[in-house]
């Protein structure tokens, strides 16, 4: 039971991560294509605020405050009772609201597969493709050192 709960939490976090990193336009487009229900009562927000970003001295030492970032959050309740949350960088309120509804739908066992296959999976593939493209473009700029023999011996 404990193991299942931890797996559920990890999957929910991964879905929230995908939603946070995706653009609002992509979420809206896939949402409409999937015909997912968007009725929900807004419990909080959507509202934009600041999160102070922390780094670590030397990369791995004590934390310090670097600067702030805009973050928009929303909390919704579905007619079926599930409460969903979203926190995402930026100021896209429509995205925050939809992502919160997606999080709530994800928690409904009857809806989870639909949310995963129609929304999260395509978003994740697009992010992975972009990630791999960027990685390959960077890899092409890797220096391959070679040595040249100079002189007689």
């Amino acid at each position, binding site marked *: 039971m404990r193991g299942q709960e931890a797996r559920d939490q990890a999957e929910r976090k991964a879905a929230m*991560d995908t939603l*946070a990193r995706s653009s609002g336009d992509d979420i809206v487009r896939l949402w409409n294509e999937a015909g997912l229900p968007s009725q929900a009562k807004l419990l909080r927000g959507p509202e934009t605020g600041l999160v*102070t970003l922390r780094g*670590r*001295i*030397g990369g791995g030492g*004590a934390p310090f405050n670097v600067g702030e*970032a805009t973050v928009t959050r929303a909390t919704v309740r579905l007619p079926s009772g599930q409460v969903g949350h979203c926190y995402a960088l930026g100021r896209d309120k429509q995205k925050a609201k939809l992502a919160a509804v997606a999080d709530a739908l994800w928690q409904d066992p009857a809806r989870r597969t639909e949310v995963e296959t129609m929304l999260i999976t395509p978003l994740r593939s697009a992010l992975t493709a972009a990630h791999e493209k960027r990685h390959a473009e960077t*890899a092409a*700029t890797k220096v391959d050192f070679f040595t040249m023999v100079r002189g007689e011996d």
Partner: protein
Amino acid sequence: MYVAVKGGEAAIANAHSLLADRRRGDRSVPALRLDQIVEQLALGVDRVMSEGSLYDRELAALAIVQARGDMIEAIFLVRAYRTTLPRFGYSSPIDTSAMLVERRVSATYKDLPGGQLLGPTFDYTHRLLDPELAAGADVAEPLQRTGEAEAMPRVSAILAREGLIEPDGDMPQDHIPGDITREPLEFPMARDIRLQALSRGDEGFLLALGYSTQRGYARNHPFVGEIRIGEVQLELDVPELPFAVPLGTVRVTECQMVNQFKGSAKAPPQFTRGYGLVFGQSERKAMAMALCDRALRASELGEDIVAAAQDEEFVISHSDNVQATGFVEHLKLPHYVDFQAELDLVRRMRAEYEARENPPKAEEKKDAAE
């Protein structure tokens, strides 16, 4: 008696509408869109985010347009906007070793795990203006190279295996990171607070100070152990969720400066370090920050304080360009009353001076008396 002088409302309103007109410029030239600025003036956007201390590309782009490209004015606008928003909290510390790296170079090791990745750099360009760019030529897609992703440990971790470098900077166990947006600056300050101030500090000011250390004012023999640029994951602990909520990714530049150190009464000979971490792609700023961080650790490492770059109060008090521009630029605002007072004072002093330098002759005095 104080007499308030009114007037200027119409002049101010007209000046602002003239500003709006000049900002727009020739109407036959298409107006800039924010996405054009975000995409094509990306490093300018990064500078405004870094020194405005607010990670939000569109807002930084808007600030740049509104400020007509005046970066410090744009930074000022962003700083002012920040104050209108509520605060949700402090993120978990970012993990730069897990970065999606877009550039990573080391000047201390040629062959290091993960390799040298040049990324989109100005280095090795010939700095010749490009007429094709002016003509709007198409740009080819960059090449790709596929292969296994290699782990990219931080260079400081490689040096640490030999025990010849100091560890990442630690603070006492119960230390809560200071926040200069909440508490006023106090000197001397802890390194974490100094780093926050440096990260939002003026690039030009920090660059000049970093340069001064290289030219011999607080020389500390720096090497770029590593510069890495790329995206890191941001997470926030919130009470409503049982896990840290992922917020998305931000691009940062990190610089690990490695400095030779011959040892002092407080520490053995070893490599010491300076650290730079800034928003966006900005390695000049990250390097300058790391040089200043190292120089400012003089008293911690038992070094003599002999140069400006080592003087914490001097550096940190003057590194913020919004404060600096506010105080310098306020001089152009009306000081009529102050100046009137000064004028009276100078007239009086001058009269006294002249009376002293050219004392009236005795007969003249007598004449005057009669």
